[in-house]
């Protein structure tokens, strides 16, 4: 793929990007199924939350929106279950990857602020296939989705069968999960779609590829392997006199 960038001198004003595969077709499908069900779920859910949306819950309109909420919820919940049946080992790999945090993640978080806010290419500790921010997002979404599912089940089928206290707690946990996952959604949407540095993210979620230079810079442990990435990181730190 050739990207034309104004002012590049070599190669007649175009640069050459080597794309390498990162996401499988099923991973991308899962991402878009989740996105296209989560957003309508958030809209129908926030109707009882946001004062300016509350009139949408009145009477039969509210009943219809609740029905939509439940239909989308079933699709959202089925997606990871089907994925687990089709690619169980890959799902386990994802879970293991995303729930692993090390001391290097603190270094990443420190470097992330000048990088994303000021566009400064500060040294970041080498990262695996998912960087700290992506893993935090994944953890919030996985825990949030499980919480949504359990509490939503209680609120759907449990009324009258479970104790009122359990129902009340389910409502609150559902609410908290909505707040936390939606905050994550705002950050995720901003970084993936709006942020100028992250122009590749939509490409990679559509075609499943990222550029080699981005992989080398941001996912060194995945690109080089863990040991080689650490070696390079140590060399780099020594060179720069850290």
């Amino acid at each position: 793929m050739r990207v034309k960038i104004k002012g590049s001198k070599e190669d007649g004003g175009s640069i050459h990007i080597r794309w390498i595969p990162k996401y499988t077709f099923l991973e991308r499908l899962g991402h878009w199924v989740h996105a296209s069900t989560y957003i309508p779920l958030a809209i129908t859910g926030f109707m009882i939350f946001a004062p300016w949306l509350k009139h949408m819950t009145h009477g039969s309109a509210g009943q219809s929106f609740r029905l939509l909420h439940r239909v989308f919820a079933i699709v959202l919940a089925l997606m990871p279950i089907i994925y687990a049946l089709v690619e169980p080992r890959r799902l386990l790999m994802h879970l293991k990857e995303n729930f692993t945090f090390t001391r290097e993640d603190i270094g990443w978080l420190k470097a992330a602020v000048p990088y994303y806010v000021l566009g400064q290419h500060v040294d970041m500790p080498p990262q695996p296939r998912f960087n700290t921010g992506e893993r935090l997002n994944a953890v919030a979404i996985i825990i949030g989705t499980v919480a949504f599912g359990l509490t939503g089940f209680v609120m759907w089928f449990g009324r009258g069968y479970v104790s009122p206290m359990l129902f009340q707690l389910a409502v609150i946990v559902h609410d908290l999960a909505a707040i936390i996952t939606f905050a994550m959604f705002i950050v995720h949407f901003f970084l993936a779609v709006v942020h100028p540095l992250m122009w590749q993210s939509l490409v990679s979620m559509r075609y499943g590829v990222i550029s080699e230079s981005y992989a080398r810079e941001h996912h060194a442990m995945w690109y080089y392997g863990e040991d080689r990435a650490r070696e390079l990181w140590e060399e780099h730190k020594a060179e720069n006199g850290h």
Partner: protein
Amino acid sequence: MADKYAMYIDASKCMACRGCQVACKQWNDNLGYVPGVRETRNVGTYENPPSLDPQTWTRIKFTEYDDPDRGFQWLFLKEGCMHCTEAACVDVCPTTALKYGPHGIITFELELCNGCGYCSQFCPFQVPQMEVFNRLTGEAKSSKCVFCQDRTTNGLTPACVKTCPAGALDWGEQDAMISKAEARVNKLKTDLGFPKAMVYGKTELGGLGRIYALTAPAEEYGLPKDPKYPATSTLWQKVCQPVGGIALTAVTLGAFFVYLVSRRHVDMEEVE
């Protein structure tokens, strides 16, 4: 509360004729016994129906009570919405179907209700009853006593008060009903031999819309001894939602701010 009205319920005069149940159903067009649709069955007690339900907004609860001083007796309790001054149902209702109406009545608008059922789960007395038409789609409607708001806002008494042949019920300003209940409880204690008689509803949840003169402790009637506004409702409505709203606004504004700053600093010609 100055403008609050209340129903006075004298449990010592109630003879459990259940005329109030009939008058309530008649005035509010609620179903009684309908063969094949709404049937009742004998469960070994005179109590009927066995609990409040979507078509039964008030009911006489029968309790067999073995009084240590007086021996066995029936306790008759007229159940129904308590019309709390601090009503959790109003706070958790997302549709505003439940509202504070005139005279401190908790009014209910059927057309606004979407059947979420939060009122039935957050009520400290578990009064609102859900008519569930379809559990799967969530089609349902809540229902409860509204103190015959169409009558009471036009200067009449609720249908049950009007019909009570024993004179056990009365309707008026809450303060007057409290005085009446206190006078009656004094008489029950001193003259009529009910040493444990008590007033219920004077202070509970800011003062209830039902003021009971009881002949035995409230727990013996199955009333909660010290009902509280549910802490979960406060946590949900007063903490989680406002804090969540502020947090989401802050995150959105923060992202926008970062966008403005990063746009100035990122040199797109260097980005691959």
